[in-house]
């Protein structure tokens, strides 16, 4: 058994997920289900009113800001995983303090970013929205 065989169930499960949906939706249910479309059915459901415009319109920036902070944290945690994983073995040979200090420095810098965003209101769902009307104070960049 070569080493890569351990990844076999993952591939199987992913393929199973794809195939299950594909086969069921495309084949089986096509056989058994009814199919009689009409224009009203094919409208997007907006509580019975006719839809106005596409739904693919603009959304608020705050969604992006959330995603932005998320991805930074995601990457930081990705970097922390191996360090944290070796912490225990390092601790047993007496280097735990060193790893801990490195980790704490890392986390502190991370927290500084979080604190900045907190302070500037990026974490406030409602206030950051209001800020766009009120003032451009605290945005950091001045525009003409």
């Amino acid at each position: 058994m070569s080493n890569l065989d351990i990844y076999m169930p993952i591939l199987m499960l992913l393929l199973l997920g794809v195939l299950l949906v594909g086969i069921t939706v495309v084949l089986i249910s096509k056989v058994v289900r009814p199919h009689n479309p009409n224009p009203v059915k094919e409208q997007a459901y907006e509580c019975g009113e006719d839809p106005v415009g596409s739904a693919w319109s603009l959304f608020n920036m705050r969604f992006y800001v959330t995603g932005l902070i998320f991805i930074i944290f995601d990457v930081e945690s990705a970097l922390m995983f191996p360090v944290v994983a070796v912490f225990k073995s390092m601790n047993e040979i007496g280097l735990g303090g060193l790893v801990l200090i490195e980790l704490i420095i890392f986390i502190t810098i991370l927290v500084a970013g979080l604190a900045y965003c907190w302070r500037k209101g990026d974490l406030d769902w409602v206030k950051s929205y209001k800020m766009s009307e009120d003032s451009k104070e605290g945005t950091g960049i001045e525009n003409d």
Partner: protein
Amino acid sequence: MMGLASYLIISTILFICGVIAILARKNIIAILLGLELILNASALNFVAYTRFLNNSIDGHIFSLFIIVIAAAEAAVALAIVLRFYQIRETVHIDDATQLQG
């Protein structure tokens, strides 16, 4: 079949795809997609060389940092794109004609 050559070819294809996306797509976000492809191609090269040429761990760490930097780059670049869009209401790259924003 699973030699160094095949990995290099795959990464070359990815790289060329990325370059084409950068050169030919007009939507800035599409260009960023191309950039991600290029970064992935280089990360793949690092890991492949590490496996086939020397068995140290440094290639993995390098690709790890490439992933980190790619994520940071994507975050900042997309923020710039969004800012640009808010000002110009377009993400067409040929509309980015002024340095001031």
